[in-house]
């Protein structure tokens, strides 16, 4: 299996707060990995360090065989290959749904409008929003917004997708449609790292699940194995609380 992303001895502090402590993680091509853990355990920070929205203090981030450093790499080029979906969607409110999806391909990948529109419409059709091209985001439900955000990230044809609690801001009845979209994406072979509180999704869809606590990875394992037979005591305690 080809390694897609690897972090080694990653450390990140915010002031005096040491958020990530010597984190090691590798994710392989086509793999779906879920990061679980309590709030403040560092899982979102870890995810954000992967596309340099947070800048690590030390350690390595190796993407597609290439060790990424701000000094040696154009971070914008790296980010084009790393899609990101945010908890609060962060859609561009002044642009229509279709414009949200076509913006980056046109501006960054510099493909022409017709091509961007064609690809954008295909992606929106795929996430089930084929009837919403010309609608502005504020007319959409949370679940629809998040599916637009997924389409927007996919429009850059990333090699990996990062999801930062993609369903945490949604009303309960809207969670399913977003998870369904993500599941479909996983089936198509997209490499995904998902920070989530949806244990059902992690168990069912993720190849591996990583449990984080207090800035460290406590346990990593095959998802079913980790949920059914957690080896570490802290994992057992956490799972007994959330399941």
């Amino acid at each position, binding site marked *: 299996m080809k390694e897609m992303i690897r972090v080694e001895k990653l450390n990140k502090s915010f002031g005096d707060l040491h958020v990530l402590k010597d984190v090691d993680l590798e994710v392989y091509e086509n793999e779906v990995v879920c990061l679980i853990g309590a709030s403040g355990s560092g899982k979102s920070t870890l995810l954000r360090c992967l596309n340099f929205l947070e800048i690590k203090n030390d350690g390595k981030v190796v993407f597609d065989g290439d060790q990424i450093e701000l000094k040696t790499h154009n971070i*914008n080029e790296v980010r084009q290959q790393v899609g*990101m979906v945010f908890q609060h969607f962060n859609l*561009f409110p002044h642009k*229509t749904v279709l414009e949200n999806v076509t913006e980056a391909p046109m501006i960054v990948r510099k493909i022409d409008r017709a091509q961007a529109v064609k690809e954008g419409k295909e992606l929106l059709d795929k996430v089930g929003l084929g009837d919403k091209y010309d609608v502005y985001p504020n007319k959409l439900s949370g679940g629809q917004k998040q599916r637009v955000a997924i389409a927007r990230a996919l429009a850059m044809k990333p090699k990996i997708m990062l999801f930062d609690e993609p369903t945490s801001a949604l009303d309960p009845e809207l969670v399913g449609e977003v998870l369904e979209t993500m599941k479909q994406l996983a089936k198509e072979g997209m490499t995904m790292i998902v920070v989530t509180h949806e244990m059902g999704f992690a168990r069912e869809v993720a190849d591996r699940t990583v449990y984080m606590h207090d800035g460290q990875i406590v346990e990593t394992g095959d998802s079913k194995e980790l949920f059914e037979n957690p080896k570490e005591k802290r994992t057992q305690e956490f799972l007994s609380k959330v399941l």
Partner: protein
Amino acid sequence: MIVANVFDLNTFFSELIRTYPFFFEAAWVTIRITVAAVVIGTVIGVFVALLKLANPVTRVVADIYITVIRGTPLIVQIFILFYGLTGVVQLSAFWAASFALAVHNSAYIAEIFRGAIQSIDKGQMEAGRSLGMTKGMTMKRIIMPQALRRAVPPLGNQFIIALKDSSLAAFVGIAELFRLTQGIAAATFNTLETYIIAAVYYLALVMILTWIVNMVERRLSVSDR
């Protein structure tokens, strides 16, 4: 001679009709000063706002600029440009007044834009950056269009202030509304009526400007519909 300074409706209307060609001409001068000031002031204002947000060094420069400009009276700034800079550069009265008004307003406009830009959710910049857009691209394509929309109401307010402040250009001899009014009042002794006529013209101009600002605001808010 005793001048009875009591408002006379007949005088008001007869003067209104008699003087309108002069007032229209002067109003046009007022409009030109204001438009020049507002356009130049907005360009400088956006630039200063971006300086203020760029990095700590440029922020100090922007802060000094804003403090000095906002801390001195417009009339003093006009006089400095018109009388004070004669050894350095000769400005026509029109451009001295317009430029002073532009610079004066730019300090306030800079603060309006800074506030508007900072009010845009941090997630917008992150979303743009996560798609591989540079900071500049994201600023231009994502942040500024939204900030501009939020800036329109306070900008409109500032433009109205600029329009009224253009009356200070009278003191460097520009034949705009206020200067004309002074001349007519002095010549006819219809002081009260003449100044009320001036007020009517200013009010009309402000109402037109308000209407334009409202229209722009509506045009920009398509995504709220």
